[in-house]
């Protein structure tokens, strides 16, 4: 029996007087796809960002793939290679081509030669269906294509878990499908994924578990059908009916 890939316990995060995370426990098993939903300001993104320490948790513990992320002796840059992250606003490097975006960390962090990095980078772009866009700069790509390059940038490093922070929220509706398709194929390849998103249709048929957060705490969690059809808490029910009205 393998331990969880992500094991966060008792996470608290304060931003000044603001108490954003109030003791969150979250475990994600290998190959599991967990969806995190909740109103804006509920702490979903902060939770994700505490897992790879883009945000420093105020207290609690985070262990990812057996590595204690909060231990000062941990080589954080080495550990972060194992945790892919995809952002709402893509955050591609505008001065580099798609291939340059994907190969930068391969060369600088994973220590690959330029030729090795380019081979791995092209393979990653192939996986997201953009092999023919390798030499394009972000400005020449659509939002959906940019987000797929961002996914390729992460998966090229062969992470143990992928964090998605509202990956489709900044996209035009007609471009959402292509990104979800890539996420689905990642899931089929056995990637462990933690997704903050309001793509309920995708959550319903791809997620193993849905976690509902409100006001910095997990209110309830369970299989998608249970959370969406028969939520136990009033707050969950209110939120689900809110977003399903749209």
């Amino acid at each position: 029996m393998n331990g969880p890939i992500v094991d966060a316990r008792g996470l608290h995060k304060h931003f000044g007087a603001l108490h954003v995370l109030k003791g969150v426990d979250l475990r994600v098993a290998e190959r599991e796809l967990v969806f995190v939903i909740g109103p804006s300001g509920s702490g979903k993104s902060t939770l994700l960002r505490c897992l790879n320490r883009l945000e420093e948790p105020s207290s609690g513990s985070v262990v990812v793939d057996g590595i204690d992320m909060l231990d000062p002796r941990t080589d954080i840059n080495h550990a972060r290679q194992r945790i892919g992250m995809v952002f709402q606003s893509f955050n591609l490097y505008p001065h580099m081509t798609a291939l340059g975006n994907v190969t930068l960390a391969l060369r600088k962090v994973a220590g690959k030669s330029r030729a090795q990095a380019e081979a791995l980078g092209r393979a990653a772009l192939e996986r997201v269906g953009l092999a023919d866009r390798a030499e394009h700069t972000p400005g020449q790509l659509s939002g959906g294509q940019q987000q797929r390059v961002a996914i390729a940038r992460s998966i090229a490093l062969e992470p143990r878990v992928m964090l998605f922070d509202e990956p489709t929220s900044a996209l035009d509706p007609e471009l959402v499908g292509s990104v979800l398709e890539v996420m689905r194929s990642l899931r089929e390849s056995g990637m462990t994924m933690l997704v903050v998103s309001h793509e309920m249709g995708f959550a319903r048929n791809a997620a193993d578990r849905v976690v509902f957060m409100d006001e910095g705490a997990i209110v309830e969690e369970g299989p998608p059908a249970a959370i969406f059809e028969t939520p136990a808490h009033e707050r969950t029910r209110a939120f689900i009916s809110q977003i399903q009205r749209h």
Partner: protein
Amino acid sequence: MSSWGRFAETFLNTKVMLKYLPDILSGVVVTIELALLIVVTGIGAGLTLALLRSLGVRPLNWLIIVIVDLFRSLPPLVVIVLIYFGLPSVNISASGFVSTWLSLAFVLMAFSEEIFWAGITSVAKGQWEAARSTGLSFGQTLMNVVLPQAFRLTIPPLTNRTIAITKGTALGTVVAVTEILGQASSAMSNSYNPSPLMMGAAAYLVLFFPVVVAARWVETRFAWKR
């Protein structure tokens, strides 16, 4: 004599020009030497300060801000005079050339630090986060992701500042530096004729016009396809 004839006799006097051409040319050499030294050391020091500032060490940043604001507010001429006439009182003597170089380099350092700093801070936070999330260190992110984007934004204001401050080499006249303007004005008083000043003006044009054109080329070169 026609009015054009009088103008040419006064401002474009061939005899005077030929006589003082070697002086003006030696002034051009001095100006080029000074300008190159100022640009290389001033921009180099400005970039170094901006990089130090990005480390976010509070007391260090306060020190940098004080130094930068000081040199941004003092007129360059005052700095030149202070170094040239002030340093000997602490038993350091700097030649007019060195005083002018140091003063203008300090001023360019101050302005270019601010320009580089503005460039660095204008790069979106998401760029840092994306790079750091893939395991790049602070330094690697700065060098590979942030600075290339910052430089692109800094080139237009930096070239403007550089040209303005480099033209300040003419202030060296005050401390007896034999650069273009110094040569031209002493030639003017010796010949009782302003033609050498016109040669000086022409020399500045010849020197700085290519720099402006080169700056434009660099701007287009560094722009990436959006």
